[in-house]
């Protein structure tokens, strides 16, 4: 295979993988800290994309020109906020009332929420049933490296994700607040006895994870140029799969799992003839194999190291 093609595919895989990683981080945070698996997390991804799409008009009306950096940052902040607010609402109205219920009930209720959200977007967004073209939120020159034309969106997504993941790393590892989160993940009762407001930690964890998922949705719109109401389903499944492959509860495992899935998908699509029709199957097969042979994930031996 030509070297240009390899570079191109490598970047594609990196872009896809980091997107999965952003979703997976949410799953793993929720599981590590709150001990819930949020099946509505995939819909946050979809929500992020649609918030970005619908806020284009709003942001241009306050005078920012489309495609400029302030414009892009404004949209990004809106998307982060929308994800965060959704996370808070989810905690208050769904996760908290279900805390005493068996696991299976929490799982089913988040599933119900995901259906309601998906259908609501389909029904109430104008022309929501059909795929929506996603605008170029940030104009960039195409980049050429050694004759290889690289899509600027891919680079943008990779940089943005890298920034967000480093930000998350900083919050979790370096701030007092991150220490609270880690403490809650390690032992909820002990954390409460140390005076940590666990309820607040739950809310903020859900807000944090959902905000990251929403940005991933926006990035998906950017790199593919098209969004649809049902995009959250596959994304959610794959994000969850990535989190499981990396070991549920382990943030760095989730990032690695996302990367692994992204690279494997691109590898299969680009090397196996007619591979694209099996693209979605790959992650499912991997996750089933992983659950059968290494139920704790690749980084399972470090499973005690939650968050």
């Amino acid at each position: 295979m030509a070297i240009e093609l390899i570079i191109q595919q490598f970047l594609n895989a990196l872009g896809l993988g980091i997107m999965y990683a952003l979703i997976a981080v949410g799953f793993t945070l929720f599981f590590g800290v709150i001990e819930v698996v949020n099946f509505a997390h995939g819909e946050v991804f979809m929500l992020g994309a649609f918030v970005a799409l619908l806020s284009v008009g709003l942001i241009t009306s306050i005078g920012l020109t489309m495609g400029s950096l302030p414009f892009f940052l404004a949209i990004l902040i809106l998307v982060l906020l929308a994800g965060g607010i959704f996370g808070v609402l989810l905690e208050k109205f769904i996760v908290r009332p279900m805390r005493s219920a068996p696991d299976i009930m929490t799982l089913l209720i988040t599933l119900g929420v995901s259906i309601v959200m998906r259908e609501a977007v389909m029904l109430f967004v104008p022309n929501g049933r059909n795929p929506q073209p996603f605008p170029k939120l940030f104009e960039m020159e195409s980049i050429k490296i050694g004759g290889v034309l690289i899509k600027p969106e891919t680079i943008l997504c990779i940089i943005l994700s890298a920034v967000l993941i480093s930000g998350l790393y900083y919050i979790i590892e370096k701030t007092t607040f991150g220490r609270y989160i880690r403490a809650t993940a390690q032992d909820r009762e002990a954390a409460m006895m140390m005076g940590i407001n666990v309820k607040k930690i739950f809310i903020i964890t859900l807000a944090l994870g959902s905000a990251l998922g929403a940005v991933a949705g926006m990035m998906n719109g950017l790199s593919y140029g098209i969004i649809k109401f049902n995009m959250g389903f596959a994304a959610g499944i794959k994000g969850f799969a990535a989190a499981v492959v990396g070991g549920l509860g382990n943030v760095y495992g989730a990032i690695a799992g996302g990367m692994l899935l992204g690279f494997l998908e691109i590898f299969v699509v680009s090397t196996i003839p007619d591979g694209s029709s099996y693209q979605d199957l790959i992650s499912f097969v991997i996750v089933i194999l992983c659950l059968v042979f290494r139920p704790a994930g690749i980084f399972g031996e470090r499973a005690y190291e939650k968050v």
Partner: protein
Amino acid sequence: MIKILLTELLCYLLFLVFVYIEDPVMVTAFIALMIIAGFMLKKTGRNFLQEIEKVYAENLGKVGLLAAAIALTVPFAIMGDSYWLQILNFMMLNAIMALGLNFMTGRAGLICLGYAAFMAIGAYTVGILTLKAGISFWIALPLAGIFASLFGVILGLPALRVKGHYLALVTIAFGLIVQELLLNLESITGGTNGLIDISSPSFFGIDMGTTVNFGFMSMTYQANFYYLCLVLLVITTVVLYRFSNSLFGLALNAMREDQLAAQCYGLNLTNYKLLAFAIGAFFGGIAGGVYAAMINFIAPENFGYSLSIIVISMIILGGLDSIPGALVGAFFLTVFPEKFRAFEDYRVMFYGIIIVLCLLFMREGVLPFKHRIFKPKTAGGEGN
């Protein structure tokens, strides 16, 4: 006995009224009235309700027999309306699936979010066997169930090592894999186009796809399938009821509550899990097989994720692990939306809202599972 007959006839009457009223405003008023009446009954008529409940619980066999007998008359009572017959057929197929899923998820606690895959397997088994191998429907139908069971066991194998959320993920993945395979194995399954012209079965020389003549009234082919579905539904209910009330069912309950404790009591979890999957999947396959023969056309998109969700919402509404609950859930969630066909688009959202509201406010469902009461065999035996 007379109480059972009267209450069942009352329900039947209400159902017929519901079928016959057409105006959406009237329908809404009727439903509102029913809900208000239900609340009033719960508030003021507690003694009456308890009495009915007791009578029903003591004479389950008679209750079922009477209900089945009443159900036999439904095609005549609705004047052979083919549209409503078809809805009732779907309702019964949904009920068979809800019962199967209820056995897996409610009784054994093995969550399954890919149940539609079993229906798909059953439908394609019947479709392929009757179309390409020319095998009779009556042989293909049990094979459809057995084949679905086989896939249930295959799904059960990874499920032996995972539980809870992981199992949910595996079952979703299973459902999607089956659907993708149906789409991509074009030479066998016909790909996106699906299988067309699946022949209707013939019953002792009578083609079930033709109009039936009862002498005083002739009905479209749906009436044939109505009785087929009814027979299958009764068999399913009885079989699963017997399974649930056996020691085997109790073992599955024990496994659901605490796997480790169940293991400590000497239960072989491997066998129980695989059996629960196989039995639950069997009925999904049967429902799929009848569906294929009834509709004569199947395509992969008929068996998507949303179907799995619909079946799940039925058992949540009825109450997990409750057999009457699964029946009632299937009835309400299939029949009620039909009166609001103007809001057809909102249907899936309605199922989602039902799931959320039920779990938030009515976790046990409409007809909660009643804990079995231990009855010592000898009069002098000590309880427990």
